[in-house]
């Protein structure tokens, strides 16, 4: 019976893994991510640098509306640092006495500031294309972190004979190879405060670490609880099985 179940499971798993129809345009990079694996954690230094990349580069076009400044405690920033970061950002801040919208410094309770007030404004500023919100982007794309890394490092010249449409940029990773986003990261785009060499690959690695955290901030706690839960359940399985054997010991079966 166990064999039957594992056979079916195997067949089904093979089916699931023989992946759906999204064409892999280029080979998926196989980066080493600190958060992979049962005991993976977020490299907090990388995530903080990644926030710096997001705030200085990506946030000019991409919103991250699911994140609040207070969430940054998850990448190791303390309350004072978070308050300072928020206070340096101007956000809509209620109404003045005449009833007109006014602005003010953000607080930790605020959502990350969006670059555009709404979708129409975003499209107008970007040739009709909508820069997607990045809160969940790592989960929203087949290939996850590796795919996003591939996009960020996949810009280049189109091969000869490849016809590029106006306003599009060639990208090895993107399905169809034509992406509406100009190359956002190069060597030296961001000056890291901790002095880490700011190569394009490093910047991409760090911002993807940040984005992976942003999409699933509970990851480390979840895996840690998971280890304990599974170990406890394995213990309980052994225990209940032992009791079962004892209970059934006087029954021929």
């Amino acid at each position: 019976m166990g064999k039957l179940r594992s056979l079916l499971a195997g067949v089904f798993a093979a089916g699931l893994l023989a992946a759906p129809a999204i064409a892999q345009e280029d080979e998926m990079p196989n980066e080493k991510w600190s958060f992979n694996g049962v005991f993976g954690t977020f490299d907090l230094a990388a995530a903080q640098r990644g926030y710096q990349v997001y705030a200085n580069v990506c946030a000019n076009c991409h919103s991250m509306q699911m994140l609040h400044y207070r969430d940054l405690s998850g990448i190791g920033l303390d309350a004072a640092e978070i308050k300072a970061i928020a206070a340096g950002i101007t956000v809509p801040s209620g109404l003045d006495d005449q009833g007109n919208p006014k602005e003010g410094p953000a607080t930790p309770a605020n959502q990350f500031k969006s670059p555009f007030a709404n979708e129409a404004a975003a499209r107008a500023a970007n040739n009709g294309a909508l820069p997607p919100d990045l809160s969940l982007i790592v989960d929203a794309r087949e290939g996850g972190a590796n795919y996003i890394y591939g996009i960020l490092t996949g810009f280049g010249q189109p091969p000869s004979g490849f016809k590029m449409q106006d306003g599009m940029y060639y990208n090895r990773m993107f399905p169809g190879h034509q992406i509406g986003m100009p190359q956002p990261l190069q060597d030296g785009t961001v000056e890291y405060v901790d002095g880490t060499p700011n190569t394009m690959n490093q910047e991409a690695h760090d911002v993807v670490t940040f984005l992976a955290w942003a999409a699933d901030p509970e990851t480390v706690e979840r895996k840690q609880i998971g280890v304990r839960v599974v170990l406890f359940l394995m213990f309980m399985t052994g225990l209940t099985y032992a009791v079962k054997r004892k209970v059934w010991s006087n029954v021929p079966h």
Partner: protein
Amino acid sequence: MAGLTKSEFANPVINWIDTRLPIFTMLQKEYGVFPTPKNFNYFWNFGALAMVCLAIMIITGIFLAMNYQPNTELAFNSIQHIMRDVNYGWLLRYVHQNGASMFFIVTYIHIFRGLYYGSYKTPRELLWMLGVVILLVMMATAFMGYVLPWGQMSYWGATVITNLFSAFPVVGPKIVTLLWGGFSVDNPTLNRFFALHYLLPFVLVGVVFLHIAALHITGSNNPLGIDVKSPQDTLPFHPYYTIKDSVGICVFLIVWAIFVFFVPHTLGDPNNFIPANPLQTPADIVPEWYFLPYYAILRSVPNKLLGVCMMFGSLIVLFVLPWLDTSRVRSARFRPIYRQLIWVWVLSFVVLGYCGMHKPEGIYVVLSRVATLYYFLHFLVILPILGKLERPLPLPESISQPVLRGRGGGPLPGSATAKPMEKA
């Protein structure tokens, strides 16, 4: 007190309650001492696992409902609020989301047990049919539940499936408008799906109650497929099967925990992390894995109405299975041809699932047509004929007997008369 039979429990509180409403007597009878065949294998755990699953889904669902907003403007964000801000919200959500998959895994295996061991045969036809009702209600619940996060796949899956009803002649489009409450899947649809998604699990509890009540009238089937002949063939449910089910539950929870804590997104679709956009269709519209075989059947024929009829037909045929299978023998253990052909049917179901994952083009069209054909062939042609033509193996005299002679189940050497029990 006129009309009251005094209960005989040691605990005075329990006794007082039981005299007035005999819940404890009922529990004692139906789960305490209930005579259960002694030769169950672990396949018989899966009904209990399904009940545990239902309970966990209801509990996590209620706590999720405390934070979920069934409005198109708010739904997606409310789920993110649960994931990020509600204490242990991520845990509630992942348990519930992966629990739907676990519920279908467990139920499909439970159904397979019924198919293999002939549990649908007389006198358990109604038990089986109630089970098919449970499957249908589960499917409706799961379908509506998947719409609630209001992601791209939620929206477009709902659009595709509700649009199917327009295939029905004359009244089709009116039915679809009624389902939608508007001119497309939109806020009225989401709101009513939430109301119904909250309701149906409690309907399920009721149908499960009937399912178990029917079971307790006929008694359980067993791997040999032969009737219980004497109390020696049975054991009281408690402690023998309560403990055996506990083992199964622990293993089941390990599998569930691995999904929840380590690979919570594996069974899902990345597209559902994108908020629903009525103006942009994803490249591939794919339902959750447990619907893939039915999706493949739907798309196997180019005609919309025929596809819809065949998809529903693949489930309705299960209702009449007890009458399609003409074999007098219940368990596949004693049906040498059926026990091989059932695996071919399982293969066709898996192949259908695989086809459902892909666009209906190229090889997948051929595969899904062949597999659909075989699926129906199995029920409508093979089973009725096989029952008449197959020579079953000789059945043991009783459930106890093969055990006494060592692990049995196959034909017994020499005569098949029962030997007297040797253990006192």
